[in-house]
């Protein structure tokens, strides 16, 4: 058993301030590099792919919030303000790495190639939804894109991500190849209060699982500010306790996020160990369309953060690099807007998944009792054909 080495003879208590954790910043708010800062190894193509995913997501979010207000969706939840934290991390990973998210990371799914149409199918629970219309809007998932289906119970994905990564490690060993993929796991600073957070972080560390944890510290868990969520120095300060290499970044600074994430992935694969990134940012919008933040925070606070918009900052840097122009910006915005609206309209016309999907996937095959329940249901629906919608109304 490990025993600590140094000793003292006067009682001294350590406290949070004994471990000040700095924030990695590369781009200043004007989109210029800080003195002494170095831009990560990002070529134009990748930089633009990242930027476009951020921009698309912002536009998707805006449109969908409106669509929800119009009653075309039951629910929505935006990534607004955190696009750099999300795409900047995801972009440092390979498509073969598994992403296990919380729910506010649609920008990473877009980065991997999820189409506007696919977003719409899920949001509208129509027959094309990969999730077969079973979960509320924004609970995306795609096996093809290695994006684990989102689950509402918070923090449950954290120990799962540790286990997933352990499985990746063993599979590589079994196949006699070097470890070449890992897991990227997102969660909010609120979810980090759950017991599953502790279990997952500790297990990842002690069982040496190649997983990069990204904590999006956006200041709030619904209405609860961080001051009522924890008393320590953010989430990064917990990394030390787990023996996990940890870094804090300005989550609104795309280059800082990407730099940290690229480095983190390298460590995860080389050391076969977890890494923790805490991305400091802000949830610019409401928690979801069911929420009204005016009840718990000030307009001024929101405005202050709006000035630090990560997309704006990334754009300034891209313009500076000569990789992007206002004209391209405008064209991209228009393209995304019309794409989103076009797909929304098209997907609204599709029916919901088949009624049979009520009982599939509970098990690999419906067991007898469930088949019987279903047959009885069908007989009942046939008795009252006009009472049950066989096609999706506007109301899902």
């Amino acid at each position, binding site marked *: 058993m490990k025993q600590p080495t140094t000793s003292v003879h006067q009682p001294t208590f350590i406290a949070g301030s004994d471990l000040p954790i700095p924030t990695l910043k590369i781009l200043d708010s004007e989109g210029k590099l800080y003195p002494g800062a170095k831009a990560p190894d990002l070529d134009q193509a990748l930089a633009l792919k990242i930027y476009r995913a951020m921009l698309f997501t912002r536009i998707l979010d805006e449109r969908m919030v409106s669509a929800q207000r119009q009653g075309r969706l*039951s*629910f929505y939840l935006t990534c607004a303000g955190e696009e750099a934290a999300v795409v900047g991390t995801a972009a440092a990973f390979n498509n073969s790495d598994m992403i296990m998210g919380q729910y506010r990371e649609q920008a990473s799914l877009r980065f991997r190639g999820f189409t506007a149409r696919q977003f719409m199918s899920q949001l509208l*629970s129509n027959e094309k939804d990969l999730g*077969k*219309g*079973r*979960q*509320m809007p924004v*609970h995306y998932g795609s096996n093809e894109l290695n994006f684990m289906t989102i*689950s*509402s*119970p*918070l923090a449950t994905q954290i120990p799962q991500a540790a286990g997933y990564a352990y499985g990746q490690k063993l599979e590589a060993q079994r196949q006699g190849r070097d470890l070449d993929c890992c897991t990227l796991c997102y969660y909010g600073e*609120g*979810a980090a*209060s*759950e*017991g*599953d957070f502790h279990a997952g972080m500790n297990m990842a560390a002690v069982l040496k699982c190649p997983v990069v944890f990204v904590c999006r510290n956006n200041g709030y*868990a*619904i*209405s*609860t500010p961080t001051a*009522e*969520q*924890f008393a320590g120095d953010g989430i990064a300060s917990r990394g030390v306790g787990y023996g996990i290499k940890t870094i804090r970044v300005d989550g609104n600074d795309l280059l800082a996020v990407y730099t940290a994430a690229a480095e983190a992935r390298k460590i995860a694969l080389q050391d076969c160990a977890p890494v923790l990134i805490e991305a400091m940012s802000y949830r610019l919008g409401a928690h979801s369309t*069911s*929420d009204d933040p005016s*009840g*718990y925070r000030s307009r001024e606070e929101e405005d202050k953060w709006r000035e630090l918009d990560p997309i704006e900052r990334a754009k300034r840097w891209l313009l500076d690099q000569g990789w992007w122009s206002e004209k391209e910006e405008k064209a991209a915005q228009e393209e995304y807007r019309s794409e989103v609206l076009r797909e929304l309209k098209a997907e609204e016309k599709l029916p*919901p*998944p088949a*009624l049979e*999907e*009520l*009982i599939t996937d*509970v098990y690999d095959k419906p067991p007898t*009792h*469930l088949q019987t*329940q*279903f047959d009885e*249901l069908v007989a*009942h*629906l046939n*008795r*009252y054909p006009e*009472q*049950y*919608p066989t096609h*999706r109304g506007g*109301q*899902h």
Partner: protein
Amino acid sequence: MTTMNLLQAVNSALDNAMAADDRVLCLGEDVGTFGGVFRATSHLQEKYGRARCFNTPLTEQGVAGFAIGLAAQGSVPVAEIQFADYIFPAFDQIVNEAAKFRYRSGNEFNVAGLTFRSPYGGGIAGGLYHSQSPEAYFCHTPGLKVVIPSNPYQAKGLLMSAIADPNPVVFFEPKRLYRAAVGEVPEEAYTLPLSEAQIVSQGSDITLLAWGAQMEILQRAADLAEAEDISCELIDLCTLLPWDVDTVAASVTKTGRLLISHEAPRTGGFAGEIAATIQEHCFLSLESPIARVTGLDTPFPLAHEKEYMPDHLKVFEAIKQTIHY
């Protein structure tokens, strides 16, 4: 008397309880400044201070454990679990700790003052994780009381009783009715007895039994049945644990038939317990099998929620089948 919806009735119960006894506290995720995501704790922090109505960090097992400690100390905590779907991380603290606290200590300690409140149930397009009805999981746990109101008047009276009861109580609130159910409710404090079922209306052909949001469904089905000259006796169970066997058994002895309905999946749902008990008590009176109209044995769906729900038409059909057995 004032007109209140179910949410206001809950809020009023909390308000009265906090005013009457300064050991009463409200805690949970977002219950502070914001007043809870459904606003059940609105204005309580303003009125009673941050120490007595406070946000907790986001951890249901923590909320439950913390509330148990408070209760053991002599406080009277009312802990909110934001959605019943999220009560499972607190399962160990509720089922292994709160329920067994008095027993295991030989009554050296207890958690008399403890109440958990949580919105449950479907019908709000909430999918898997904003729709569950987990009452049966708790009803298999001696030491707990489980209470579910079906209207604003009950919500307030039963919640005040739950808070006053010297045992840990799990109180599930039918969230579909939070704003939909409106009724006359006294502004002052009052209690309604726990473990007493309420006979909502008398009938002679069949007993219909449910709790919470499902009572409204039974009522609509009973109306349809009446049009076909079937006389239904409606019973609202109100408290599921310990439940009022006598009232239900007496009714079934009279009507000879029983139908039980809940939203939760059939297998292992609380209707099974009731059916098993009643077939024992009323074996010689039963004229047809006890019927269960419930959710399917699947997770809670979204797109086909309407088809999934044990609605008035399904209950009505089951009534007819039972009658014509």
